[in-house]
């Protein structure tokens, strides 16, 4: 059996079902509305596993599921050296969101990473600590700012209501997911012009750690049905 992990609720689940349906594979939940059980029609030897989208990267890394649908941001954030752990099979064209860096809109002097770096340097000299960036995307933000050569910042963990941290004086900037930018504007924040860290979308991944022995022809058939090149794992 090839175990396919799919988000267990909401729009991400519905859009995933639609995506597979357009390719002749019917995924559906079975049992009562509250029961996380599923069935697959139109593809041989594929078992549906309904999971929280946030847990799918971990399950792929552990090899407990063979295939999984989740946001490309979550895979990059949660899996170190992600390309060595999963293969990126297909971007699915929904669940779009941008991971960006935003600062108070009142900071007229800060528009770019160059400005953020200079402001952070002065901030540290004035306040005695590094400029705080609130986020839950520690790995992605750290790698981005390190690559861009920005200094004198620190990350503070924020698992929710991140946009509120600046007004609450627990951070000076935020790095968060946005699709329309409305929450940012409502909290008087603006996105840095070169502060786009990652453009995320729902993506079909394959686990490199899963046991694929005996599943090779099934995977090849499935890839063909989905209109994808045969993956090398």
């Amino acid at each position: 059996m090839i175990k396919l992990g799919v988000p267990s609720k909401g729009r991400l689940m519905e859009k995933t079902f639609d995506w597979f349906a357009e390719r002749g594979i019917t995924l559906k939940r079975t049992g009562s509305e509250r029961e996380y059980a599923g069935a697959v029609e139109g593809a041989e030897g594929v078992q549906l596993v309904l999971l929280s989208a946030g847990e799918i990267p971990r399950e792929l890394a552990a090899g407990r599921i063979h295939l999984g649908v989740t946001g490309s941001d979550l895979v990059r954030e949660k899996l170190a050296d992600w390309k060595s752990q999963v293969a990126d099979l297909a971007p699915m064209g929904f669940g779009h969101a941008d991971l960006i860096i935003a600062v108070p809109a009142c900071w007229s002097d800060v528009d770019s990473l160059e400005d953020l770096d200079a402001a952070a340097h002065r901030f540290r000299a004035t306040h005695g600590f590094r400029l705080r960036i609130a986020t839950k995307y520690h790995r992605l933000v750290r790698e981005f700012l390190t690559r861009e050569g920005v200094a004198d910042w620190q990350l503070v963990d924020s698992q929710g209501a991140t946009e509120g941290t600046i007004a609450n004086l627990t951070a000076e900037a935020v790095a968060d997911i946005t699709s329309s930018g409305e929450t940012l504007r409502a909290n008087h924040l603006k996105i840095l012009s070169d502060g786009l860290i990652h453009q995320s979308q729902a993506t079909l991944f394959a686990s490199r750690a899963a046991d694929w022995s005996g599943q090779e022809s099934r995977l090849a058939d499935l890839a063909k049905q989905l209109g994808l090149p045969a993956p090398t794992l």
Partner: protein
Amino acid sequence: MADKAQSRAQAGRLLEQFLAAGAVEVTPDILQPAEALLDLYGEDIRARAYVTADPLRGEMMLRPDFTVPVVQAHMAGGAEPARYAYAGEVFRRQDHRGPARSNEYFQAGFEIFDRADPEAADAEVFALFSDILAKLNLSATIGDMGLLRAAVDGLDTLPERKSALARHIWRPRRFQHLLARYSGQIEVPKARADLLTGQRSGAPWIGLRSREEMEARIAALEADAKAPPLASDAVAALNALAELHCPAEAAPAALRALAIPALEPAITRLERRLTALAAKGIDLAALQFDASHGRSTMEYYDGFVFTFTAANPELPPVASGGRYDALTRQLGQGREIPAVGGVIRAGLMADLEAQA
């Protein structure tokens, strides 16, 4: 691959050699307070060190290197001059897979804190390492972070520009960006141009950073906009310096040929160091000089730097080190002392000895 017992034994032999060279043994704790390391390295250290929590002492890190605790111990009351040696495990988180990516390995190191003759101390550390590693046919490269710092300091421009460049010497990408900005090679972005013509956001003020802090930075940007661009020949000379590499014996002449007057004191120091190295039997024709050596990988070094590397490019340096005068200032709470030292990866050395 050397196993743990062999690596530890090798580290122990190196420690004996360092003690025989006049050092006193120091034994820093494996668990180090995270605060000093975070303050020094920034957030980047979290990607490279293991962080753990102590219920009473707060956030702690598994020792990612010995230099910082050795400097802290010395600054807290070491006698001068001092020579220290140590051997033990260091711990490095690895975010990527690969053969040379150990997350736990033995280091043995030797550090000199001495005001009398920094170039002689540089040569003493290098020659000691060269002697210990002689059988392994390694190639050695030296550099000097003081050269780039001196060239930046000698630029004919605003002090703010010089300090911004000096701050980013260890981040070549941002350094090049600033250099392009200050020399007018990249256009002033529209947002900056608007700011300089007086445009301000109407958004309500939020956050800890104050309006006064913003006004102070805008004043600095206005002064910057009025300053003439960096001369293109000065930028070319700086870039030529960053790219310079040649045999060590040819380095002083090659550096003088760049015609950067501000380099002269640093070149004189380099010559004194090379003379001291030659006096200790180092072959300056076989020794490589690279003006950007260690620029993106050896962050707290601010003067002389060196590495010894094996022929296999996948392997990390067998030994590395350098001068870190500024680190003693940062950790010394108002005091400072010239300091130089280096470490040898004991397990890697044991592997290479087994192959030799």
